[in-house]
């Protein structure tokens, strides 16, 4: 009951609100049909920016985190004492709250006394110093790196579980055939660990769309909407600017985008597995 009332029903209501000009406070509002959608698509540069940022953020996080977590998993597969210790260390950020992670990295990126700039100065790369999160072009990518740092260890564990399923005999046979390391990785490890890759990519995509907490706590979407993603924009429209109807329309588009990406991924997976496994 609680579930239907608080989760399923609100999703339906989001559609209803999205065709009104309701401000979230007053009792009166009027139906405006698809007006909100028209404005969003044709005349809202902030919205366009947020869509672009969300996609850029997602792309960098998904690609970066998948590669990094696979590399870490392969490097730490052997259960020696040191690799178990490193696995524990790499996993650790995942248990922190987004707010904690946002504060830690605000400090690292701080332009005046942050670790990143100090470190560059210390190794003689002082000219590379930057305002990091103040950089309107690049800030969203610097936040994507934080997101990767946050969850790469978690995905590494998924990969380790996947890698442990691969039978050694295949590698022995490949070695007999004279395959090199890279060939073994490309023709054995990578295709055989594909079930884990599917999970990692799907989960990382969802996670990156949920980066709301991280961005609210670090930049709040600024400067000048440089790190605005759809989730933060919806929050701002609804609860800071009190444009509930408009925000609801944004959230509907948000859901459509997520659904489209999920479908595309399913498609890609079924194509890939149809080609390589059967």
């Amino acid at each position, binding site marked *: 009951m609680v579930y239907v009332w608080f989760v399923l029903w609100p999703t339906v209501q*989001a559609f209803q609100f999205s065709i009104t000009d309701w401000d979230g406070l007053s009792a009166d509002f009027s139906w405006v049909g698809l007006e909100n959608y028209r404005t969003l698509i044709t005349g809202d540069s902030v919205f366009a920016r947020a869509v672009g940022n969300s996609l850029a953020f997602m792309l960098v996080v998904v690609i970066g985190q998948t590669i990094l977590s696979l590399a870490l998993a392969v490097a730490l597969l052997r259960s020696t004492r040191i690799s178990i210790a490193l696995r524990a260390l790499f996993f650790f950020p995942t248990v922190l*709250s987004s707010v904690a992670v946002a504060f830690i990295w605000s400090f690292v990126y701080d332009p005046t006394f942050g670790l990143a700039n100090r470190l560059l100065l210390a190794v003689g790369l002082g000219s590379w110093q930057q305002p990091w999160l103040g950089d309107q072009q690049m800030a969203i990518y610097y936040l994507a790196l934080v997101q990767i740092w946050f969850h790469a260890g978690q995905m590494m564990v998924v990969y380790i579980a996947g890698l442990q399923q691969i039978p*050694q005999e295949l590698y022995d046979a490949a070695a007999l055939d004279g395959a090199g*390391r890279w060939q073994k990785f490309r023709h054995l490890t990578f295709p055989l660990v594909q079930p884990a890759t599917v999970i990692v990519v799907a989960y990382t995509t969802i996670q990156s769309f949920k980066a709301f907490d991280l961005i609210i706590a670090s930049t709040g979407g600024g400067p000048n909407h440089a790190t605005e993603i759809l989730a933060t924009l919806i929050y701002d429209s*609804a609860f800071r600017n009190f444009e509930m109807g408009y925000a609801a329309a944004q959230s509907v588009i948000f859901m459509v985008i997520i659904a489209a990406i999920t479908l595309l991924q399913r498609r890609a997976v079924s194509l890939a597995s149809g080609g390589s496994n059967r």
Partner: protein
Amino acid sequence: MSPAPTAPDTPRPRRERRRRVLLDWSGLPRGLLLAVYALLVAVPLVVVVLTALKTSQQMYADPFGLPPNPSLANFTELLRGGRIGISFVNSVLVTSVSVVTTLVVASWAAFSIARIGGRLGLVLFAGFSLGLAVPAQVAMIPQYVIFDQLGLTNSLLGLILINIAVTCSVAIFILTGFFRTLPGELFEAAEIDGASTWQLYWRIALPLSTPSLAAVAIFLFVMHWNDLLYPLLFISDPDKATLPKALLDFKGEYTTNYPVLFAGVIIASIPMIVAYVLLQRWFVAGITAGAVRG
């Protein structure tokens, strides 16, 4: 939990030899990757702890260095203010009640779905799985309106209810998957012996599912303890804030006073860190189960 093996039905020897060949990529890039990443993870965490022991002036003078005369002043300042103590209690309350209730409700629901089977079971299962596909930000506006109408804003009960509502799909999803793997003969045998449905659940299904329940519990614990979205939406009264919300409010108050902020970060993370250190294997299994199934 882990993906099914794609390889033919060969016995899988777990000899050291196997690992060695799988891992045989040249030592240098591997060592370099691990060393660099270890520094990337460890250095910020160490600096957080060191900074929390400094004064603001000491941090400005030397952000990298050891605290010249380490003190817990930042922690006592925060705790004396009282706010963080209240938030801590709120977080404990909200998290523990949410986790326990979700587990009870979800395990019973999952058991029923798995037992009913057939078309009705599928419909119920699909209905709950639907919740997995809805991003929180889509539902949050109507949720806020509903909460406002019900007077559930600024209430811990409201937070608990929304927590249960949004996580019961994941929990039911994972647990139904588990209950379906239990052999039906087990239940049939017990039914012949005259066991009621409740006894089947309480005496057979639950004891067998302890590892799954533990994994789900840890997953929920981490999720609720760290949640920011719902406190941000529904709580404006500082006395009702949970820790992540309280931390965010500190940011406004202490702007860039990182020593105090980091003392807050550490206080807010202590239960997580303690649990992680004590229950490490379970912890990893729990959070990853959430990732794999959810």
